[in-house]
């Protein structure tokens, strides 16, 4: 800075030409109502906004430390959860136990035991099925006879289940038909009563048939013990022969060949006989219609019992 520069920046001396020139710069007076104007503006001014939220306690270092601590804790929790759920094992990540780590640090590590070869587990032994007896030729031993009875029982059980399903299906379709036709539909109690009656009828019939089958089997066993050889027809046919009824196909063919009047009379006779049979089986119940599928379920649930099917043995 030169001497001339110092003079240029020196204070302005009072009375100098520059000071006289600057002294002419006079401001105007404030207007008379200035104070009132400011006061009015202050009173109509909206309330100032609240101060900024106080910054978090502590400085930047503590904020960073807190974030780091939260991150470490989160990662630790995730790793613990992964180890607890076995995820690390599934990913084939070795996870040493605390004892292993300590042993490696303290030098007391012991040799790991040799891995035992994995032995495949023996497959669970299926329950021994009863030895099946082959029936070769005529049935002439008690074992072959027992095997024949077992096969017959299996067929009977299958038919019994099939009939139960058929009954359920018919009841359901009948209820659906009634609902579609706008007819009264049996309530749950009525349906339960109906099923109970069907079940009771079935039980009675089963008992009756079981007694007959038992007597028949005892007779067959006696015959086998006496040395007689039984054939398949000997076991299956007699009941049907006892009943004296021809095969359905033959029966239908015979009906077709009859004159109409005779056929109508026979059908009527058959209906009466069937009604009498059903009446004797379930006293008090109304005669059932010919086809169970066409049977309307009465509100009280009085429906014919299970159609009498002759035993198929």
């Amino acid at each position, binding site marked *: 800075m030169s001497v001339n520069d110092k003079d240029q920046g*020196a204070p302005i001396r009072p009375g100098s030409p520059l000071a006289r*020139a600057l*002294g002419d*710069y006079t*401001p105007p007076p*404030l207007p008379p109502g*200035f104070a009132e104007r*400011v006061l009015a503006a*202050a009173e109509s001014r909206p309330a100032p906004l609240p101060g900024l939220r106080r910054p978090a306690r502590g400085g930047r270092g503590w904020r960073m430390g807190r974030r780091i601590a939260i991150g470490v804790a989160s990662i630790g929790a995730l790793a613990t959860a992964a180890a607890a759920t076995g995820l690390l094992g599934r990913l084939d990540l070795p996870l040493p136990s605390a004892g292993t780590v300590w042993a490696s640090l303290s030098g007391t590590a012991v040799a790991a035991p040799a891995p035992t070869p994995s032995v495949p587990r023996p497959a669970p032994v299926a329950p021994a099925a009863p030895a099946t007896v082959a029936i070769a030729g005529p049935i002439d031993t008690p074992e072959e006879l027992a095997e024949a009875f077992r096969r017959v029982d299996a067929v009977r059980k299958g038919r019994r289940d099939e009939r139960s399903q058929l009954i359920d299906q018919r009841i359901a379709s009948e209820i659906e038909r009634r609902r579609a036709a706008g007819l009264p539909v049996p309530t749950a109690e009525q349906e339960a009563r109906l099923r109970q009656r069907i079940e009771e009828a079935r039980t009675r019939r089963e008992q009756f048939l079981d007694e007959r089958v038992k007597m028949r089997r005892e007779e067959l066993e006696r015959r086998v013990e006496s040395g007689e050889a039984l054939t398949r027809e000997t076991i299956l046919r007699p009941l049907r022969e006892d009943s004296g009824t021809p095969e359905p196909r033959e029966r239908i063919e015979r009906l077709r060949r009859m004159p109409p009047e005779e056929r109508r009379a026979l059908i009527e006779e058959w209906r009466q006989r069937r009604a009498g049979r059903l009446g004797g089986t379930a006293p008090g119940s109304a005669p059932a219609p010919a086809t169970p599928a066409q049977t309307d379920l009465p509100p009280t649930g009085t429906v014919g019992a299970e159609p009498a099917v002759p035993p198929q043995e």
Partner: protein
Amino acid sequence: MTAGNEPPLRAPHVVGPDDEAVLAARLAARDPAALRDVIMRHAGALHRTAFRMTGDGHEAEDIVQEACLRLWDQAPAIAARHPVGSRAADTLRLGGWLRRVVTNLAIDRLRRARRLSDGAVPDREDDAPRADALIEADERDGLARRLVLGLPERQRAAIVLTYYEDLSNAEAAEAMKMNIKAFESLLHRARAALRQAFAAQGGTP
């Protein structure tokens, strides 16, 4: 160099040690009389400063009003930082606070006007025909206006605060929120620029 012309605003007052803190507490309590008291004490000097910075009377009034309203808004925080009876209360100077606000507002407005006008600060001299007396006064004041308004904003503020308002360098530096060395450098450059401009007008500094 003071030019207070409004009698109510020149009411004499005595500032005690806690006087400013008490005034701030009254402002914080939303006492209009306290704001009137502040206006009476400081508005004249603030208006002079603002006018010499901007060269516009209406702009100067707006700046002073804005400064007073900011004090009204900030009073609760100021009073909280300077409770009555505390040591901090002795250091509170509402006049200095207002002067700093006025200086900054004036500089901001000058910069904004320069940015919007894309050139030097416009000369707001009224060219309309006036009475002879007003024309003569205007011609007489014209040189000083041109000299002061021809300075950059910060140099202008330094001249106004130290020459016209008789503030010490330290007080002016505080008003401009500068350290003392930087302010003295700024003031030196402002005086030099002023002298050069005066010499360019044909004057003898």
